[in-house]
């Protein structure tokens, strides 16, 4: 019956049966260490909770290296961006302002540390509020960097570039408690690539350092919202923006105190597109 030239069929059958049993055992009888997960395999909502805890702990200990090590465990491709996105999403939740602030600050500091740079501001002459007019030129270059785009003021003159990237130690600027912020200057930026138009806010402390985590309340007829500096660290730690509808008139107020700024409405540039308002606040 058996063919001496072929492997006996029963051996092959036994081998296949054994492999099936072995794989089932390996997959179904999971060893204990398989339950020892790393943060990288947490469910997304648990990852968010973990990330928030890292940010809150960073606010407590100011240890950026430790925070970055912990974030690395989550396996995010761009931890700063994940933090910023989560901060933005957290803002919409009740009672989560502290968490959003912590996430935003950590995002900003990670970004600042990676680039070893912070934005310094050199103020030109302070314009008189109320005399900003439609611009007479439309430069519109380098739209990806709000700080790098050209501006026009009431005089129709292109001012000296206002922001320069200067390498410096990654200090952690924080606003002086209680001191109000005041509007230093503002301008209409004509940049065709910024669409829809925005209200861009830069906040600095008394020493001229950008301040992340400052809440800005924006109101308009029938609505109110809030945004926070530092959530887009690529534009500076003290930067925040809000997309505006040209037909509406907005009022903004910094939560650190100071007078509200009203009458921010759509202003058309020469090319027939809407300009973006840029406001610089500094702490008294």
């Amino acid at each position, binding site marked *: 019956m058996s063919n001496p030239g072929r492997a006996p069929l029963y051996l092959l059958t*036994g081998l296949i049966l*054994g492999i099936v049993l072995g794989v089932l055992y390996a*997959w179904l009888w999971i060893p204990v260490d398989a339950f020892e*997960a790393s943060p990288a*395999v947490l469910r997304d909502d648990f990852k968010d909770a973990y990330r928030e805890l890292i940010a*809150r702990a960073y*606010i407590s200990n100011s240890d950026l290296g430790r925070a970055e090590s912990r974030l690395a465990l989550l396996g995010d491709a761009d931890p700063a961006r994940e933090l910023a996105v989560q901060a933005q999403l957290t803002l919409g939740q009740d009672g989560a302002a502290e968490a959003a602030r912590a996430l935003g600050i950590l995002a900003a500091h990670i970004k600042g540390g990676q680039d070893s740079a912070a934005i310094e501001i050199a103020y030109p002459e302070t314009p008189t509020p109320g005399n900003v007019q439609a611009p007479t030129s439309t430069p519109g270059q380098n739209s990806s960097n709000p700080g790098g785009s050209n501006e026009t003021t009431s005089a129709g003159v292109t001012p000296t570039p206002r922001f320069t990237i200067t390498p410096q130690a990654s200090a952690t600027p924080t606003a002086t408690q209680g001191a109000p912020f005041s509007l230093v200057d503002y301008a209409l930026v004509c940049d065709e690539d910024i669409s829809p138009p925005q209200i861009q806010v830069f906040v600095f402390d008394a020493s001229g350092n950008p301040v992340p985590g400052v809440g800005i309340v924006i109101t308009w007829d029938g609505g109110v919202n809030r945004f926070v500096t530092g959530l887009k660290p690529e534009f500076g730690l003290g930067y925040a923006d809000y997309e505006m509808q040209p037909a509406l008139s907005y009022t903004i107020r910094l939560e650190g105190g100071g007078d509200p700024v009203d009458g921010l409405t759509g202003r058309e540039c020469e090319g027939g597109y809407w300009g973006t308002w840029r406001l610089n606040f500094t702490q008294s």
Partner: protein
Amino acid sequence: MNMLRYVLFVFAIILGVALGVFYGREVNPVELVDASPDTLRVDYQADYVLMVAEVYETEKDAALAVRQLALLGSAPPAELVNEALAFALDAGYQPDDLVLMRDLGETLSTWDPGLEGSADE
């Protein structure tokens, strides 16, 4: 002859089981996805507790700490902290970190959620 066939058959099964286990554990092992924090390895859990302790040091919010620790399991919060502290001692955590964890553990060992409201006031 029949006895030899049985022996070889059993041997083939054993060999197959070994190959199957090797494949299932080494070549294509089960991977955890969408895990919950209570499945974190003990050193990650200890660091998680340390983070909670760091936050508590600043915010002094025991209720928040309890909510954060609840993700690590249903055991009493103080017990979770003490387990993490025991690991931290063995692992040689920095003294400052140990103090933070100890302080949190002591706070939570006497923490009463019923008194939280009055304590805050």
